[in-house]
């Protein structure tokens, strides 16, 4: 997937993954896509709830070798 920015939060604990993701998303144009990498299992639910709340679009999320990847399109 073509992404406009990758936010690497591997090794970080709550709330940092979402703090970083929010900052990056604020800098994007509408329609652009952000990729977030995280190793914090607890952030999976939080991330989904946050994207839903902010009305952006969670295109997909997946897990690969303990790394969670989220793809968010800015609305």
């Amino acid at each position, binding site marked *: 997937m073509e992404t406009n920015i990758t936010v690497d939060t591997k090794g970080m604990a*709550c*709330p*940092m993954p979402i703090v970083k993701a*929010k900052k990056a998303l604020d800098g994007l144009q509408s329609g652009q896509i952000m990729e977030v990498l995280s190793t914090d299992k*607890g952030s999976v*639910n*939080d991330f989904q*709830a*946050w994207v839903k*709340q902010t009305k952006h679009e969670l295109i997909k999320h997946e897990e690969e070798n303990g790394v969670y990847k989220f793809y968010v399109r800015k609305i």
Partner: protein
Amino acid sequence: MTTALVGMTAQELTSIVLNKEELFILDVRNDSDFNDWKIEGESVTSVNIPYFDLLEGVDEALGSIPEGKKVLVVCAKEGSSKFVGEQLVEAGLNEVYYLEGGMKSWSEHLEPVKIGDLKDGGSIYQFVRIGKGCLSYMIVSNGEAAIVDTLRMSDVYEKFAAEHQLQIKYTIDTHLHADHISGGRKLADKVGATYWLPPKDADEVVFQYDKLEEGQVLTVGSTKLNIQAVYSPGHTIGSTSLIVDDQYFLTGDILFIESIGRPDLAGKAEDWVGDLRNTLYNRYKELSDDLIVLPAHFGKITELGEGGKVSARLGDLYYSNPGLNMHDEAEFRRAVTGNLPQQPNAYQEIRQTNMGKITPSDEEQREMEIGPNRCAIHDK
């Protein structure tokens, strides 16, 4: 009055809950985690605002915090609660705390509460896992101890035994647990005790154990304190209750204070419902009304009595417990098989772990036990 953010331990929070001190909790986890499981207490009020709604400021939270109350910010581990708590302090709030270790620590805290004395001078203690609703027991007599339904945090019992100069002789599980990982085998191996489990629950276990069977009598201490096993199937096919010192009745997950055990966690509700009925409506009825029931769980925080004790006289439960008052068998069958609460988190993996079939890491075990126990038919 504190003007800086201060950590509160799970133990400190436990004493606040047990002493019914007023506390306002701002829970900053996401709403599904909050709705699934939260800190409860008769004097505790809580509000849920996820931390990701407070990234740009805490005004929304400030509006919901009552003036002059002690505030505890809670999250899953502790990072987000510190993040929010610090902003509350900056906004000028006094007496702001965060829960050290978050809900994980809350889930793991065990509070030892003395239940009473035994005839030979020994005692029985209830270890209350207040965050998850699990209850386990230590029976102490003449320098020896037996532990019933040992929880995963086995170091707590070990420390308690060392402080009281006790040798742990037995660890006993009343049944194969589905809501929490047993610490019984691990502790027994470590301190040279024997681990007891009902054989009918142990078909698939892959380790050595001693068979806890009807009529078995175990003794603790030199003066022969008796622990008598009573076969009482229903929650599981092997479920076995224990009568201690002819006074205390450890009912495992068969009979609770305000509810009864669910028969479905091994996928055999239809097969076991008859056993459950027979145990509760016949088997237990033959026993003395004066036995003090000590269950393996509580469902609601209101079940905690003085000092955190969870207990009741068996005869009284035949009046007050709705699970013992369904006189129509068909009604009973419906109540314990249909419309049951959601199963405990990861219950199948927990059963596999307790059989020794899988060996998750400590961190994985912790994750598996997240959430309430949900072993009773009336749990939400």
